[in-house]
């Protein structure tokens, strides 16, 4: 029996994603990273929002929560703070994370709470059939950008780094070994980790922009990216307009829930002579 199928709820397979969609590949990469780390399935909790990518958690044999649109990271914050010993992972999409979920994304990064966020970025809203998203490159097409997207898109990794995430990496559904490695490192970072996984959506992104099917899109992704390590040597004319992949930021800092546990110890030591009991507590209103 396959070594990764045991991480799946096989009664739910085959999954819902379109033929050639990259989300299955990214999900496989996450599972392989978890397997490589040897994490206990009982101590991993995976949270997702709404969208094609967020259907992933339904297939995965862990404690899983398929939450409201954009709020996966906020739900995950509650789970991680309530039970810091759990490995908490968020699986989200470019719309779910960078559009409606943007506020929770930047604040979780600011707090550096121990959550690994996998952003499956297919540059489009797939579930609702093809609208452009905050990650859709300027000029490209979507059902709500019939004349070409006039908006500039986020560099999600820069946004994550600027907000305070202590591990940031980007890979693609073409560069799967790299993606597995980044997720593997991200899961070991105590604080807030972000791995952006560029993923192909042949059904909408591919068709709407005449890139082609899954294979052509993977070629397009391969040609449009360059590894951060190679980029330095290649010089700017070769890397111009290309998206950097690889480990982009790795600067561990103290993790939010660990800091809060320290606070609890500090308070409980100070109040160990706390004879006030339940009602003796300081009332702050006077």
């Amino acid at each position, binding site marked *: 029996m396959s070594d990764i199928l045991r991480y799946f709820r096989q009664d739910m397979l085959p999954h819902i994603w379109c033929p050639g969609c990259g989300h299955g590949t990214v999900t496989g990469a996450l599972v392989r990273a978890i397997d490589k780390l040897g994490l206990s399935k009982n101590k991993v*909790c995976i949270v997702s929002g709404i969208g094609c990518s967020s259907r992933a958690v339904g297939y995965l044999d862990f*404690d899983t*929560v398929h939450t409201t649109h954009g709020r996966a990271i906020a739900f995950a*914050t509650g789970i991680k703070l*309530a039970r810091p010993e759990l490995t908490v992972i968020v699986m989200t999409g470019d719309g779910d994370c960078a559009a409606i979920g943007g*506020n929770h994304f930047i604040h979780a990064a600011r707090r550096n709470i121990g959550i690994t966020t996998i952003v499956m970025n297919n540059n489009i809203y797939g579930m609702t059939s093809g609208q452009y998203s905050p990650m859709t490159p300027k000029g490209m097409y979507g059902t709500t950008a019939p004349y070409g997207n006039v908006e500039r898109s986020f560099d999600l990794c820069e946004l994550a780094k600027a907000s305070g995430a202590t591990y940031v990496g980007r890979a693609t559904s073409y560069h799967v070994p790299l993606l597995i490695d980044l997720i593997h490192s991200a899961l070991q970072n105590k604080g807030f980790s972000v791995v952006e996984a560029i993923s192909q959506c042949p059904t909408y992104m591919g068709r709407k922009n005449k890139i082609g099917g899954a294979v052509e899109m993977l070629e397009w992704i391969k040609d449009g990216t360059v590894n951060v390590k190679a980029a330095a040597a290649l010089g700017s004319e070769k890397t111009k307009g290309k998206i950097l992949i690889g480990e982009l930021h790795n600067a561990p800092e103290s993790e939010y829930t660990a800091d809060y546990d320290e606070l609890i110890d500090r308070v409980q030591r100070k109040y160990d002579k706390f004879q006030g009991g339940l009602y003796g507590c300081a009332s*702050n209103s006077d």
Partner: protein
Amino acid sequence: MAKTVKLMQGNEACTIGALAAGLEFYAGYPITPSTEIAELCAEELPKVGGKFIQMEDEIGSIAACIGASLTGKKAMTATSGPGFSLMQESIGYASLCEVPVVIIDVQRMGPSTGMPTSLAQGDVMQARWGTHGDHPVIALAPGNVRECFDLTIRAFDLAETYRVPVIVLSDETIGHMREKVVLPDPSEIRSVRRAAPSSPAGYKPYAAEEDGGVPLMAPFGEGYRWHVTGLFHNEAGRPTNSGEVADKLLRRLSRKIEKNADELADYAAESLEDCEIAVVSFGSSAMSGLSAVRRARKEGVKAGMLRLKTIWPFPEKAVAELAKRATRVIVPEMNLGQIALEVERVVAGACPVQRLGKVNGELFRPEEVYAAIMSAARGDDAAGAGRAAGEAR
């Protein structure tokens, strides 16, 4: 047992009640007039090893609370109208996914930013129908500082018992006023915890007998590896598009509340036995109402007071009962007739129902309700008198 006598603020009593019920997690966002609850939780939770977090907005707050509850912890948030509006989608999520959580809504003058420090009770219908779709919810309304303590404990017990979000509908006056309060010894408080399965083998997170059953709820991190989804789901928690499964689930969820309406109904009645002019109210308005009823009684008028402590599910039996004898029902509330709508539905024409709505941010003075009672006693028609007393400005 050692009784504790304290001068306590309503908001403070909510927090103490929550702690007495075993609160372990608070996520919230500052908003007048509820912020004292957050501040006291920030101070007290670490002492008992609990967790406090101030989220980036109210949407994040309710989401974090639901997340914490899924790990088996008792979780609460507190807010007011504007924040309560932001929380609605995820309250619906907690309702469909049957996740216990307590939300304290300290109502203020709305809609919109309104008058943040002024009293109102305009979130009654929002507490019931704020989120989209049919869904079970329970709402309790404290009428004094001690009840902020009692009803927050009851809110946790009901949330844990029925796996449902419970809203404590407080208001600016109840939340901010201070009263002498006699609190029971903590050891006397029996708080309920959700019924959990004994082993992961064959665990079905949404299996319960058809008629309003409450499924066993496993905590995350203990090997049950169950799935929670805001999509309609079958007994194993797997998402479904089957209309039949959805129909069965939603009816079970609604029955959870309907079936237990009697146990959930909670109210305080005074001189209703021979009451002809009944005052039905809740929260801060009921304080003035009771004072008016007592004054009218002294003057020989057969007035009576029904103060609702459970708002949703609406205590229909108690209202229908008093309507049998009453010649008029007066409903003083700090909105334009939200509870009155329910009272009218239940009374169904048995006697006139007079709305006494105030939306100027100032609590009823007892004489305003007294005037309505006396005009009813004189037999003035319901509609006319109501306008005179309520909008006397």
